[in-house]
């Protein structure tokens, strides 16, 4: 096991110690294996070959310690090729305290490593059967950022309030995620020698659904700061990166079909890193529209359009030429078609194909891989078999 597992090894001890005192204990999990290829890009592997690097395993447990206090944890093993570092992780492990539990208002407080509950698919983006597609829209769900965005160590609140005209869901969290060397290399550059840390990530979100309405609306805010500490012999300098993001989301669920969309604007400022005294701030924009149609209880078709511009003042990336970077690294737009078929009540086969214009969401993020991504247009397909219990 490796990666950001400061206390993953404590999980069995926590549950073993508590089992003796309280019941019930719930255990669930999932197993998924797939095959994927992204020719003409480093999205899956450096060669662009067919790859089996599409493995996702998870085991979780939840234990009622006291009537209002629960302990929840999940460990996962992931192999997504170049999409994120391969290995096992403590996905979450937190105490869940029910602070308010009445018919019109529920509020829970989470302490520990909690999942990101702020975006439409963020809380279970690593649980194959709960997400709409194998590879989520990269504008919002950037794979290289997966480990940092999926969970944080700290404090979070989640509440539901029944109001006269509908239901308000609200979330708030503050914490940070340890960034391992492998993650930093995926995100920044394989050539870094120093260390990275996330100083904090502060998020808040609200979702609203009116009585009798099939539509829900939400807003999510994120403020986060990262730092890079150079090593003794390092090509890169000390630096700070600040990310601030606003996401608007919308979802409509009908009997046979549903639509989901998230639109975001993100300000990223970099001080240092590339060189001492370097400063750059830019605002990126993007979003996706994803639709599903259920032909019958087993067969579902999927389509999505995803768009991203890293700099809203230079949507076609033409200014990147001054830095010797091809303009198609400044954006990434894609169309995806897919389908899923329920082979049994807990078995699903999913397949999808993405046609992509641009490489703005291929890793690494801060130092693009120009050598392996020499094509503006590229494609990725994936097929995955999943089982859960």
């Amino acid at each position, binding site marked *: 096991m490796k990666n950001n597992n400061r206390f993953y090894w404590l999980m069995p001890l926590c549950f073993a110690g508590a089992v003796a005192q309280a019941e019930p204990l719930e255990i669930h999990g999932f197993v998924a294996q797939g095959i994927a290829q992204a020719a003409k890009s480093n999205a899956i592997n450096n060669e662009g070959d067919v790859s089996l690097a599409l493995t996702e395993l998870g085991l979780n447990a939840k234990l009622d310690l006291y009537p209002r206090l629960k302990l929840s944890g999940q460990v996962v093993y992931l192999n997504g090729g170049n999409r994120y570092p391969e290995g096992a992780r403590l996905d*979450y492990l937190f105490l869940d305290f029910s602070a308010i539990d009445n018919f019109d208002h529920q509020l829970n407080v989470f302490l520990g490593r909690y999942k990101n509950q702020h975006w439409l698919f963020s809380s279970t983006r690593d649980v194959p059967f709960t997400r709409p597609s194998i590879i989520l829209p990269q504008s919002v769900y950037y794979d290289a950022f997966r480990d940092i965005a999926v969970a944080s160590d700290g404090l979070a609140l989640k509440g539901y309030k029944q109001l006269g005209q509908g239901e308000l869901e609200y979330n708030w969290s503050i914490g940070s995620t340890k960034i391992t060397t492998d993650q930093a290399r995926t995100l920044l550059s394989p050539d870094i020698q120093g260390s990275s840390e996330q100083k904090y990530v502060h998020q808040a979100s609200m979702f609203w659904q009116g009585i009798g309405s099939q539509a829900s609306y939400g807003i999510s805010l994120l403020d986060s700061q990262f730092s890079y500490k150079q090593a003794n012999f390092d090509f890169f300098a000390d630096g700070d990166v600040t990310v601030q993001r606003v996401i608007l989301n919308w979802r409509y669920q009908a009997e046979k079909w549903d639509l989901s969309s998230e639109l975001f604007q993100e300000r990223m400022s970099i001080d240092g890193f590339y060189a001492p005294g370097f400063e750059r701030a830019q605002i990126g924009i993007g979003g996706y529209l994803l639709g599903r149609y259920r032909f019958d209880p087993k067969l579902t078709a999927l389509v999505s359009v995803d768009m991203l511009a890293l700099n809203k003042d230079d949507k076609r990336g033409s200014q990147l030429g001054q830095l010797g970077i091809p303009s198609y690294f400044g954006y990434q737009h894609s169309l995806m078609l897919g389908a899923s078929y329920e082979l049994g009540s807990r078995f699903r086969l999913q397949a999808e194909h993405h046609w992509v214009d641009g490489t703005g969401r291929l890793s690494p993020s801060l130092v693009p891989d120009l050598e392996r991504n020499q094509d503006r247009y590229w494609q990725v397909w994936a097929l995955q078999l999943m089982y859960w219990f």
Partner: protein
Amino acid sequence: MTFLRSLCCLLLLACSVQAVEVVVHSSVSETTLSTAQLRAIFTMRQTRWTDGQAIQVFVLQSDHPHHQRFSRDKLKMFPYQLDAIWSRQRYSGIGSFPMQVDTAAELLILLETTPGAIGYLPTDTLSSNLRVVTINEK
């Protein structure tokens, strides 16, 4: 003629799925719930009755006709929405699955014998040991 035959078949099919009522164990004091409150219970967010007793939620499998009727008529939701909410909450550590059983007969026994239980039953299998809850559609 073919159209009329198809329509008759559809009507017969619709009638064959009986209406369901929300029922609770005799230990539960609530007699009326709003649709929003019923949703809070069946999405596993509301875990205690007003007297502090733990809520035990029982349902049939998602593809069972009675479950589908209950989801649409009482919760005003589609069964796939419930499945998605349960999975998302359970696999991110913040919720549980309800107890799922295969038949209405099993459901009846569990509802009758589990303090704090809530579920639903077709109208012709209601038991005097259970209390029917009125759903206020506001």
